[in-house]
């Protein structure tokens, strides 16, 4: 009997009480996902409605000022557009949570750079949204500044900010992703080789056995 066979047989011999096992699985489900309570459900409905409300309000104002106030600063209009987008994002997120009926906990419990030593795609995306918003804001402010030298300084500040925050996180994110991808490919390859080896082994055993019988 091989080690693996013995292991499988021993595991199969372990008799468990279905009630205890079911209780364990219920508790584990709670570890991975927390079902929405009536309060959190209401909070999510409110968040979704508020998100939709903000989206309608800000997008309406952003479009309306284009017709009613042609001289309204572009920065202001962009702010309204950004508000509308955030409202929409909130509405979509709350809607998804409501549809799922639970909040997943495990990933967010661990999704810190310190623990996972990686840049989570959400963190990466948020950083870039922040960088682009700051950059656009600086461009707008710079181009509208009465003093050209001051305006250039503001634009330059925006570029420096983007370089300081956006570029390092991009490099870090790309490096982490590449490392994970490479390791995953190596592991997959090794796993396939191991599986093939396990497949070939019994065949070789059979051949050796038949040769012995022939002899």
């Amino acid at each position, binding site marked *: *009997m091989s*080690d*693996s066979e*013995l*292991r499988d*047989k*021993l*595991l199969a*011999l*372990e008799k*468990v*009480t279905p009630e*205890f*096992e079911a*209780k*364990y699985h219920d*508790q*584990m489900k709670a*570890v*991975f996902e927390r079902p929405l309570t009536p309060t959190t459900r209401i909070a999510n409905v409110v968040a979704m409605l508020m998100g939709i409300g903000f989206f309608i309000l800000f997008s309406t104002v952003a479009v309306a000022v284009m017709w009613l106030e042609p001289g309204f600063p572009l920065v202001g209009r962009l702010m309204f557009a950004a508000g509308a987008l955030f409202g929409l994002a909130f509405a979509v997120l709350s809607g998804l949570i409501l549809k799922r009926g639970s909040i*997943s906990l*495990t*990933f967010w*419990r*661990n999704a*810190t750079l*310190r*623990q*996972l*030593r*990686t840049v*989570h*795609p959400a963190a990466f995306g948020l950083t870039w949204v922040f960088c682009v918003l700051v950059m656009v804001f600086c461009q707008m402010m710079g181009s509208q500044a009465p003093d050209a030298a001051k305006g250039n300084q503001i634009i330059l500040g925006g570029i420096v900010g983007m370089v300081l925050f956006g570029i390092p996180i991009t490099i870090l994110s790309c490096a982490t*992703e590449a490392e*994970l991808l490479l*390791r*995953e490919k190596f*592991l*997959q390859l*090794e*796993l396939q080789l*191991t*599986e093939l080896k*396990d497949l070939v082994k019994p065949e070789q055993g059979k051949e050796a056995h038949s040769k012995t019988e022939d002899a």
Partner: protein
Amino acid sequence: MSRERQLRSELLLLRYRAGEESALQEFVALWERPLFYYIRRLADCEEDAWDMLQEVWLRVIRNIGTLRNPAALTAWLYTIARHTASNHLRDTVRTRELHDAEADLSSTKDATEPSLPPFAAEELHQGLGQLSLLHREVLTLHFLEGFSLAEIAVIVDAPVGTVKSRLYNAKKALRKILETEVNHE
């Protein structure tokens, strides 16, 4: 220890790190049976063993980022399982450990390479239940994952020499139990 299972586990952890949340659930499903089997050998009752297993997973999830060497993953899981079980059974384990440590030392001198005649898995499973706690523990680790002496030493937090003699004594005790049962039949 199965290389395939080790690689599969590493892959799942890698996917979890990359943000694939379901990978952790697959990982738990892959390891919950063997870990339960080990914990059950240490726990006094089944209900406690399930509670301990749940606690093991909480600790694993909390500390997964601290695992430096993915190749040591299996031993790491069993180490966490042992710490959790020890905390639950603190008083009883300590007294039994003391008793068994003395028994280990008494026959360290003749600790040559131990071997067991081929017994059926059912007999081994039954026999394990009749061993002392520490003997049962090292043999379970040996049978279940085929851990080396060094790996078992890390898990049970004891010197390799102690583990070697403990394993030897455990096999001797198990053989005695199984042979007595065969003679009775």
